[in-house]
């Protein structure tokens, strides 16, 4: 299981769910800038999309190794954030799509100690938003439908299974724990011949918590004894072996049976988890 190579004929699918509820208006510090959590998470998603496009670049252009969907959920409902008309977009189409680009000036300390002012061009694939409640159940239902349809396509039979990455800073406002757990099980049961769908849940920290983020725990005992952290643990997939070297490198420790979840994550943690959850998989 989880051994299929990603090729143009057998792409894999990434579905990123982004919490755009009102609490995402809280401020955080990221890369020496003060942003709202919505802005920071959108930037993290932007960078991931850029990374996936760049990882698809070859001599002959951009190869379609991935079906990528980004879905936002807020008080306004659940919506596709990359394209209004459809959910999945491929890298070659993304590479040709116009997107808002912003010049960001940063002040950085060089290795020799000097300060450097540099400008980067940031592609805004996702527009940040923070409004209303947290319809996570509805978002996961959308993900379930997408995954079920994707896995049912004959051309995807042998593909590396889909990965759903859910970024949230709070609890669902449209379902209880039992309903969420049941839906997560149903989502994870959708599979290709290479294995079941992976569900990775990333919980962004609240400012007032101020605790150290916990990513890819190998035991439920690593988490605080809180109902919500335990719920995310149960909902999340166990990460297959191919992710272990990167996970161990980031955690700086040994361990096994890592769960695809993060609790009280900083934006840096979220970027790390998004990267591990996507670019750890080999392309051919």
């Amino acid at each position, binding site marked *: 299981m989880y051994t*299929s*190579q990603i*090729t*143009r*004929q*057998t792409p894999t699918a990434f579905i990123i769910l982004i919490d755009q509820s009102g609490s995402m208006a809280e401020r955080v510090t*990221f*890369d*020496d800038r003060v942003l709202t959590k919505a802005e920071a998470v959108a930037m993290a998603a932007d*960078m991931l999309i*850029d*990374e996936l496009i*760049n*990882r*698809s*670049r*070859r*001599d*002959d252009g951009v190869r379609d190794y991935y079906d990528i969907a980004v879905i936002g959920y807020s008080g306004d409902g659940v919506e596709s954030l990359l394209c209004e008309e459809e959910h999945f977009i491929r890298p070659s189409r993304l590479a040709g799509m116009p997107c808002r680009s912003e010049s960001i000036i940063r002040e*950085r*300390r*060089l*290795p*020799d100690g*000097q300060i*450097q002012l*540099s*400008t*980067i061009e940031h592609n805004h694939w996702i527009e940040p938003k923070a409004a209303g409640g947290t319809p996570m159940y509805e978002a996961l239902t959308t993900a379930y439908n997408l995954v079920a349809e994707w896995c049912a396509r004959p051309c995807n039979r*042998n593909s590396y299974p889909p990965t759903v990455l859910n970024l949230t800073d709070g609890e669902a406002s449209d379902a209880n724990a039992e309903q969420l757990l049941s839906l997560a099980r149903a989502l994870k049961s959708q599979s290709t011949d290479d294995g079941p769908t992976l569900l990775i849940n990333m919980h962004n920290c609240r400012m007032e918590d101020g605790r150290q983020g916990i990513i890819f725990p190998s035991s439920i005992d690593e988490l605080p004894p809180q109902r919500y952290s335990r719920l995310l643990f149960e909902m999340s997939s166990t990460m297959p072996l191919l992710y272990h*070297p*990167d996970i161990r*490198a*980031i955690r*700086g420790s040994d361990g096994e049976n890592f769960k695809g979840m993060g609790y009280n994550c900083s*934006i*840096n943690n979220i*970027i*790390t988890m998004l*990267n*591990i959850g996507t*670019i*750890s998989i*080999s*392309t*051919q």
Partner: protein
Amino acid sequence: MTLLTINGYLDTLNNPDGLFRSLTGFTVRRDLYGACEIRSGNNSVVFRLDFGSRPFMLKCYTRHKRPSPALYDYVARSRSPLLTAARILPQEIWVFDYNGGGSWHDVVFAPWVEGRHLSTHLHEALRRNDREALARLARSFDRMARHLLGEEFAHGDLKPDNLIVTPAGEMKPVDYDALFIPSLAGTYAAETGTPGYNHPARDARFFDKHIDDYAVALLSVTLHALSLDPGMYDRYSTGGTLFSPPQIVTGDSPALEHARSLFAGRGMHAQLRLCRLLESQSPALPDLGAVLEQLVPERKPSYSDGDLLLTERNGLWGYADRQGRTVIEPVFSRAGEFSEGLAAVVLHGCRHYIDTTGQVAINGSRYSSLKSFSEGMAAVCRDGAWGYIDRNGREVIAPAFVTALSFHEGMAAVETGQGWGYIGQSGLLRIDARFDRARSFRDGTATVEKEGRIMKIDIFGEPV
């Protein structure tokens, strides 16, 4: 620790000042929209850096993988024309993280290999239904493969994305991270190639000169079959490859059966033998060499450097083999030993480099002095100043030095107006010209003299 990403490297390449230890004075090749041109792979990303008119490849690693010093030391010393003079620049590039810090990382640096990947040529030819182009690719691949099997090393990850087709139509393997080299015999492989091009039984324990066998057979059959029936790619391909090795070894490959029928109908016996080899239960194919000899017959003997010895007759020089038989007639007024397949000679007052068939490979008539090739470059003198040319005769380092020695271990001792120092293959000084005398690097150190004191220095110019 932060995962290395292409985004991270792009950040550095777009704002390089202060973020490289030794590389300076370059521009990054960009596309029409101003974005850095990149070629990404499974474990790395490659940028093209132009130092004036000289292009180089910068390979940066993106996963938990780092270049092996042992492999790249071998590559740097190798005289095989199949290997480009790639070397590791340790701790060369700084990549920022999101905590305000960052870290230095190794890169691989090499002359740029002009051309496009076999994968690109293959798919373009398939789109055009161009059988002749596919046949040319097949012949070019077979020639390269025959040469590769005769080397003491093996590539380890042969596939269309790791083969460059040069403008002259020859194929050159790139990406040396899976190489088998003689010093690694008896060890386990760090990489086991790409599954779609390898025998299902290949694992880390299988690590010797035969690790390319199956991929060679598979790619040759693929190209020859597609040259006869390009449409079979759409009908049979799976996972991006025409054939599935697991299906082949279990005797359940409709694609291979179709290829067999194509070859049989045209009496292509060598290709039929390759089809049989692909059904082997072992990844090693001992009979592969004999099949390739059938596909690529030798036209004349080829000689390695030490096989040809200088011989003199009537005051003129030529070359003989070790049995004393004349191979290149004595027609040169002056001649040097062969090195990397080329020898400097003087013919009718003009200087040239000849190859082992005696043909002029590089016209050196504008130079007053030529030195032997080493690591793909040769020191040459023009208008009283020394510079370097590559194997194509291109002046890759313009004449600017008082004296110049040959490249060894990626560096060459040169004398400037300020004294002796060392340049890299980019032509830039890597060790300042501050010595009174200098000798070439050997095993990581060089002997220099300064103010009457003789000492050994390391590759950073520090006394050892």
